[in-house]
């Protein structure tokens, strides 16, 4: 017992009434009693498996029972992973582990670290020996795993041609990716001849260049029925293949050596087919999404191009000679207007000039002189103005013009 534990009464057990335990204290106490017992910490226990479940975290819970008793068992994920297989309902197994308490539920249980089928001790030992040896050789190394092609064109399938496993695989392929071509290399998947046939089928497929990936599948069965998939020849044939191999053997909980060596492990034949190919519906969705992206990108492009064009048009309008033509026209208009004004001005100047001339003309005309009393004398016939006596002889008829008219005269004397 650890001294850190706080029991009432300084670690001394007390009579009821003198001190009261909490549930935790009592449970811890029981837990320590069990864990203190060396025999309970190293137990081999045989029983029948029931109520087996595996949590999403990978821990395995089950009950071991015989005709009159039952015991809760827990196997942590690490132990379950090391194991490489899981028992099923009704399997007789031998478990190794330690007994302890799960305080939250107040139950005691076996914490299992090893598990092997009861009565199959020999096979199981072989399995573990081969598994450890091949693992040590590096056959299970992740660096060895070949990637599976995302769009396989030819899938090799190794299985029994009449089994449900093949039907499952073909159904999945038909539904998900019917573009693929299936090459079936038939092989017995159970019995003494199975390993040799599986190896041969693998080699036939692997020799072909057109094969992209190989599925090695078989439906569920007992450990003996699945034994061909724990055969060293099969394991080495898988490791030797140049094409990637997907294994799908048995049910969820079945693990075989094949699963360890294969490039990809699927829990069932159907799951192997699903891992091998993409899904048609998802592909269609992606294609549609891409087509949508093309459309929207193109629309964006067109919109941008249209905007750019509009801008160019505006720029062009700014730079176009039309603008200059417009200004020039305006200038011409103005010139015309100014010209008009100038002309009018000139005209009016002229007009007033004319009036001045007229006044001067009037001033210069003989009328004004006549009005002052002068007269103009002309020869009546020739209408010549008489400016000198030399121009007149006796008896000439003369026309005398005065301000308001003309009268005639005749010269009477010799000038």
């Amino acid at each position, binding site marked *: 017992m650890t001294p850190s534990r706080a029991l009432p009464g300084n670690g001394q057990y007390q009579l009821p009434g003198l001190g009261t335990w909490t549930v935790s204290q009592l449970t811890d106490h029981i837990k320590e009693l069990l864990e203190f017992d060396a025999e309970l910490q190293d137990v081999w226990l045989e029983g029948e498996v029931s109520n087996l479940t595996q949590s999403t975290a990978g821990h395995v819970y089950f009950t071991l029972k015989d005709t009159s008793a039952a015991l809760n068992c827990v196997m942590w994920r690490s132990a379950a992973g090391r194991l490489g297989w899981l028992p099923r309902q009704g399997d007789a197994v031998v478990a190794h582990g330690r007994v302890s308490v799960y305080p939250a539920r107040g139950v005691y249980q076996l914490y299992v670290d090893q598990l092997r089928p009861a009565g199959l001790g020999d096979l199981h030992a072989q399995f573990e020996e081969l598994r450890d040896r091949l693992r040590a050789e590096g056959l299970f190394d992740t660096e060895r795993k070949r990637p599976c092609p*995302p*769009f396989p*064109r030819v899938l090799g399938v190794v299985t029994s*041609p009449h089994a449900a496993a093949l039907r499952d695989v*073909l159904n999945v*392929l*038909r539904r998900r*990716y*019917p*573009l*693929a*071509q*299936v*090459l*079936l*290399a*038939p*092989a*017995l998947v159970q019995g003494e*001849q199975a390993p*040799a*046939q599986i190896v*041969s*089928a693998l080699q*036939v*497929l692997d020799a072909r260049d057109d094969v992209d990936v190989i599925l090695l599948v078989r439906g569920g069965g007992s450990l003996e029925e699945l034994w061909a998939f724990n055969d060293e020849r099969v394991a080495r044939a898988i490791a030797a293949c140049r094409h990637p191999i997907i294994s799908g053997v048995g049910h969820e909980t079945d693990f075989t050596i094949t699963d360890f060596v294969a490039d990809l492990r699927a829990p069932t034949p159907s799951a192997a087919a699903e891992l091998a190919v993409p899904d*048609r519906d998802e*592909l*269609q969705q992606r*294609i*549609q999404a*891409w*087509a949508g*992206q*093309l459309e929207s*990108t*193109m629309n964006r*492009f*067109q919109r941008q*191009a249209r905007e750019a064009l509009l801008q160019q048009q505006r720029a062009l309008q700014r730079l176009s000679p039309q603008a200059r033509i417009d200004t020039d026209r305006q200038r011409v208009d103005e010139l015309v207007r100014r010209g008009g004004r100038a002309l009018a001005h000139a005209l009016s100047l002229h007009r007033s000039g004319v009036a001045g001339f007229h006044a001067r003309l009037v001033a210069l005309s003989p009328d004004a002189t006549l009005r002052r009393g002068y007269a103009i004398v002309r020869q009546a016939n020739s209408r010549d103005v008489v400016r000198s006596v030399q121009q007149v002889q006796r008896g000439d008829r003369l026309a005398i013009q005065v301000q308001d008219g003309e009268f005639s005269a005749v010269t009477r004397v010799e000038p």
Partner: protein
Amino acid sequence: MNDLEKLTFEEAFRELEVTVQQLEEGDLPLEQAISLYEWGMRLAQHCSDVLDAAELRVQELGTRDG
């Protein structure tokens, strides 16, 4: 571009993906964008048709053993 029929589904599918990227990322002249767009739409139609029309082919090989 009459090589559409020669492409495998995978090639056409990847070409479509690349075309979409090019169109989205590229600062392309309009003519080039239009021809990329048309090529992409043809690829999309082709891929979709191929997926729709496909039928699984199954062939059983003779074994040497057995």
